[in-house]
């Protein structure tokens, strides 16, 4: 027992914990700056966001410790149960949920506490996906397994889409990386990349230009690989499919999307330039970040954030405060920490003996990666405005607890990697 205890603490990946704590601290300071009010300098005032965030961080640490003290077996065994509960909650929220900012995403627990089931969905989906893919006889390359794995991901996705929380929905797409790692054909990644590229190009340029480009590319590839008959045939089929897709992009875009969604995309693509209306938030966010220059304006000195030019400064646009007050140096630090964390998670995942832990690890990495890129890309105008938080930094209990749980489950699994292989 004694020996067990000792090895347990030695086995926790303290480097990851350190990065985690660093990000939480950066988050707290930036939330403080974002809502800073000269007339109230009490940093632990619980009526303020930074005061509350302090409590959230403290409780997140408690959650983390509790998770580390749990039995790993418990997590694997109960994965399906978590998943079922999450799905039920997601259904429930559609019925009795509270609508905040256009999304019916919250369940009121009374006493000022609210629950956001979509946050739980992230780790419960990861857990079940890991559980399923790690079972014997399941191979993602097989169609049936692929369908089931896809279903596990798509079910919560669809339910969240109905809230409709576009940001969280999008996050689940990132689990494609997990499937890829476990053997999904590389063509799926290429296919997604191709669709995204063609989508943007077709909106920006005339259909005929895009088709001409596609044909030219196809001819080039055919000439290069003319020996390979099979490839040539696939090429031609692909070309026809692409051309077909190009034709439907615009009708799909103009009829399939809601007006506000389309307006946000138009803004990013430069098809529309409405800096006072739809583009206001993003433009002000860009100004905030850009005005930080190399070393930033200094802590609590950001005029864009302090004088409320940027909306949702403490949550979705928290990166503005980082960029404005800490400059490019701050941007590099924060993005560096995230990249380091992601790579560290991959290292952790790869060193697991159990496929369950590895798959789960990739799920964690994928979700964090998706949040970080979308959030920052949105803040600098590379993505349409989608409301998703920056992991560990954005203000908010639900998101912090959810990311803490996500990460600490991995750390728990990792600390046990020397033990029995559960799956």
């Amino acid at each position, binding site marked *: 027992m004694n020996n067990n205890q000792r090895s347990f603490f030695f086995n926790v990946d303290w480097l990851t914990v350190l990065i985690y704590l660093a990000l939480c601290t950066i988050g707290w300071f930036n939330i403080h700056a974002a809502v800073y009010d000269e007339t109230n300098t009490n940093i632990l005032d619980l009526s303020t966001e930074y005061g509350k965030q302090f409590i959230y961080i403290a409780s997140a640490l408690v959650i983390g410790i509790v998770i580390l003290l749990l039995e790993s077996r418990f997590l694997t065994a109960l994965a399906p149960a978590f998943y079922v509960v999450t799905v039920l909650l997601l259904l429930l929220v559609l019925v009795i949920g509270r609508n905040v900012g256009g999304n019916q995403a919250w369940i009121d627990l009374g006493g000022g506490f609210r629950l956001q089931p979509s946050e739980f969905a992230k780790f419960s989906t990861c857990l079940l996906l890991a559980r399923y893919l790690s079972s014997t006889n399941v191979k993602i390359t097989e169609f049936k397994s692929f369908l089931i794995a896809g279903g596990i991901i798509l079910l919560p996705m669809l339910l969240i889409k109905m809230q409709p929380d576009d940001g969280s929905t999008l996050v689940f797409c990132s689990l494609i*990386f997990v499937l890829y*790692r476990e053997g999904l054909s590389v063509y799926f990644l290429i296919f997604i990349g191709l669709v995204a590229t063609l989508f943007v190009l077709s909106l920006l340029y005339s259909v005929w230009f895009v088709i001409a480009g596609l044909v030219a590319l196809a001819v080039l590839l055919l000439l290069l690989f003319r020996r390979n008959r099979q490839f040539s045939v696939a090429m031609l089929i692909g070309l026809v499919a692409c051309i077909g897709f190009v034709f439907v992009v615009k009708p799909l875009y103009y009829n399939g999307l809601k007006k506000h969604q389309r307006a946000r995309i138009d803004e990013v693509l430069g098809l529309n330039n409405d800096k006072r209306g739809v583009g206001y938030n993003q433009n002000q966010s860009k100004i905030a970040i850009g*005005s930080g220059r190399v070393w930033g304006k200094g802590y609590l000195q950001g*005029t864009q954030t302090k004088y409320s030019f940027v909306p949702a400064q403490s949550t979705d646009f928290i990166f503005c405060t980082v960029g404005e007050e800490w400059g490019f140096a701050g941007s590099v630090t924060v993005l560096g920490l995230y990249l380091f964390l992601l790579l560290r998670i991959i290292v952790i995942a790869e060193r697991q003996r159990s496929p369950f832990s590895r798959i789960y690890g990739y799920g964690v990495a994928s979700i964090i990666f998706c949040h970080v890129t979308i959030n920052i890309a949105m803040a600098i105008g590379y993505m349409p405005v989608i409301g998703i938080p920056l992991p560990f930094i954005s203000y908010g209990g639900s998101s912090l607890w959810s990311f803490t749980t996500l990460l600490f489950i991995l750390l728990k699994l990792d600390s046990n990697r020397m033990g029995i292989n559960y799956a």
Partner: protein
Amino acid sequence: MNSYFGRRYVIAGIFMVFVLVLLARLFYIQVVDDRYFLYAQNNVVRRLIQYPARGPILDRNGKVMVENERVYDITVVPKQVKPFDTIEFCKLLDIDKDGFDKRMIKARKYSPYRSSVFEKQISAQQYASFQERLSEFPGFDAVQRPVRTYPDSSAAQFLGYIGEATDAIIKRSNGYYNPGDYVGITGVEKSYEDVLRGQRGVRNMLYDSHNVPKGVYAGGAYDTAAVAGDRLVSSLDTKIQKLGEKLMHNKIGSIVAIEPSTGEILCFVSTPTYDPNLLVGKDRGHNAGILYKDPFKPFFVRPIQAYYPPGSSFKPLSALVAMQEGVITPQTVYHCPGYYTTGNRRVRCFQGEVHGDVNLASAVAHSCNGYFDMVFERLVNRMGGGRKTDTAFNYWRNNVAKFGLGGKLHIDLPAENRGNLPKASLYDKMYGKKGWRSSTVISLAIGQGELLATPLQLANIEATIANRGYYYKPHLIKSIGDKQVIRKEYTERNYVGVDSQYFNPVINGMQNVVDYGTAHGSKIPGIIMCGKTGTVEVKNKKDNSVFVAFAPRDNPKIAIAVVVENSGQGATWAAPIASFIVEQYLKGSISKRPSNIYPEYYMNANLMPEVPGSAEEKARKRADSLRRVKLDSIKKAAADTAKKEIELKAAKNKQQKKIAERVIAMLPKRRDDE
């Protein structure tokens, strides 16, 4: 381990590529592109222009002629307006519901978030009652701003007025002025705009996205303070200025008085005039409209813009030029049969009077036309007449021009007129080359015909005679600023090319004019005044009454020219008016005259011509009533100030009382708490 082991590198690679792309973009907008920094500055920092107080203008004795008074602009931020008692609000501002709606729509159109002017320039009294209830009207505020005020209501044309910069002025100023800025439009306000306006300051203030001020930018490091405009000391003497305006009331004409030893203008009257306070405040537009429609043009600056034939007042100058050229001596005698014959013309003396044998002094004293016709012919024909006439004429002209006739004196007011001093070429054009002789232009001898002079030029000639041969440029601003700067050009003597020895005979004649000549009725007890009357014929109208003079004879202190249009003889109106001004200036009071004339008679005389047509008649009456306001406005202004002070005091007391009441109201509560 499974066979897809290598894929971790692909995934790690994708993560890295995405992060690098984001960093590259961040590098671009944070390090490479400077625009965002400026955008952020523009978001929060607003340059607020600090308007300096415009310089006041004093008279030569330090009495304030124009200074700044505080009025208040009511501003509104439409988005901050919440429902309130509109009826009460309108009552306080003295506007109606329609006016309220109109102003609100205008403000909203300008910007719902930014403050714009709702009502301009409400008075201090009105502000006092409005300010008490300001807290009941969220979104409204009051901004103090200075406007011009004229305690004496006099010297309107000299002072001029200020107004909002027009597009043309803004364009010409190369961006110095902005729409809504006030600039001098006429008078001294215009000609000394550069010194009066002072230096604008800038305050860089921080504003948040809801347009709420958040303090000073960078601790005020980039702020500059406004520097108040320089104080101008005018050369005018308010006492005689006001006396002059009273004497000229209900008459059309000018008075210009100059201190010969400096060129400083002591009195600058242009009538009809108006109360400069009419062009300040809310009713400015309305009042200006009435004044512009006035058929007698109160905005016309007669002393420098009106020109008349000088008539007989020209004779002393004529004599001086003739003596300098040696064509006559003081002893030259002319026998006046009551007329002068030249060519086939016969020029009559005034009312056909026969002067008999006259020398220079008596010719001036009795204004003998014949004598001066003779003098003029001698000058113009001294090269033998005929073909040489034009050369000799131009020679005469140049000598006369040295006295400042026919050209601008460059007084420090805008829009000065040059009058007219004809050249030989003019007559060549009128009569053909060599088609004219001395007899053709003989009217010039007695200051009539094509010769035209402004009252300022006439006064300047007298200053020159008083100085015995030179003048200082006449000017209205004595010194500028605290350092009392005097422009160099005003300290230089301008010689007119007549030796000082020739002046005494002429001055003798001018003294005779007042002692027993044409203007003997205007003789001032105890003061030797030298003058010359002029009675200038005007076609189809009554004569212009002209009088020029200087006094005392030795060491002269004042030179004066008075013109009363279409009134009669020079001795009847202009001479007495001039004599009152001179006496008031030299003695500080007006004594009983042997001739029994007294100022009130002239003040009350109405010589305004009738204006035909009913519409114009109406306009005249309205304009006249405005002029009458002017005379009473001194008393009224004083009463107003006193009233204002009392009201402001009352408001202050009331406020203090309110605060006291609030404090008292809080006291027992506190005790309960304890």
